[in-house]
């Protein structure tokens, strides 16, 4: 069962490779922000499953921080795109 959790965690973060490609070639800055937001979502899921794999429930808080701070980051970056941050 723990191996299953570990495999799921690895697969969730392996999807991030595709998103890093989009972050490299994205023509506009907003494309890169989209890729970054999705990377954070995938990382949150991966951390949840890695916590189940390692059997350490203290890791679970990091997933919450990933979920909430990806929102904060993309909103701040979007405000920067609108030129309202400065």
């Amino acid at each position, binding site marked *: 069962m723990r191996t299953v959790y570990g495999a799921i965690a690895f697969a*969730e973060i392996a999807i991030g490779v595709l998103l890093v490609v989009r972050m490299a070639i994205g023509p506009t800055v907003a494309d890169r922000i989209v890729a970054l937001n999705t990377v954070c979502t995938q990382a949150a899921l991966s951390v949840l499953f890695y916590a189940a794999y390692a059997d350490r429930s203290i890791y679970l808080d990091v997933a919450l921080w990933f979920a909430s701070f990806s929102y904060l980051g993309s909103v701040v970056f979007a405000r920067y795109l609108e030129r309202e941050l400065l």
Partner: protein
Amino acid sequence: MKAVIVIALACVGLGFSLSGAVGILRMPDLYCRIQCSSKTTTMGALPALIALVVGEGVLSSYASRALLTAFLLLLLNPASSHALARAAYKSGVPMWDGAVRDEAAEARHRREQRRRERRRDGSGQED
């Protein structure tokens, strides 16, 4: 039996996450990519979280964190993608060539035309 359910749900979630990432790679313009990003959230994250809840039991701390994470993702991710789409649209990121129509641009165009006509009529009356 529990392992089978966990693997099945996680495969559903992983499949939708993968198709969302492939969509982010293949879609032609920014707005379609934002749609794919929301897609990984709804159908990619929820089955995976349900798989975690099924595997670890409903009354464990994993289930409570999975519930909180699902709540945060469902509530915050549409809001952030809305902020991103609005910022991109206001800062003039174009849609791709095959986009069918842009009713906001049409409305803006109509408003400009009306204002121009009104100005022309006003100047004509003054003369």
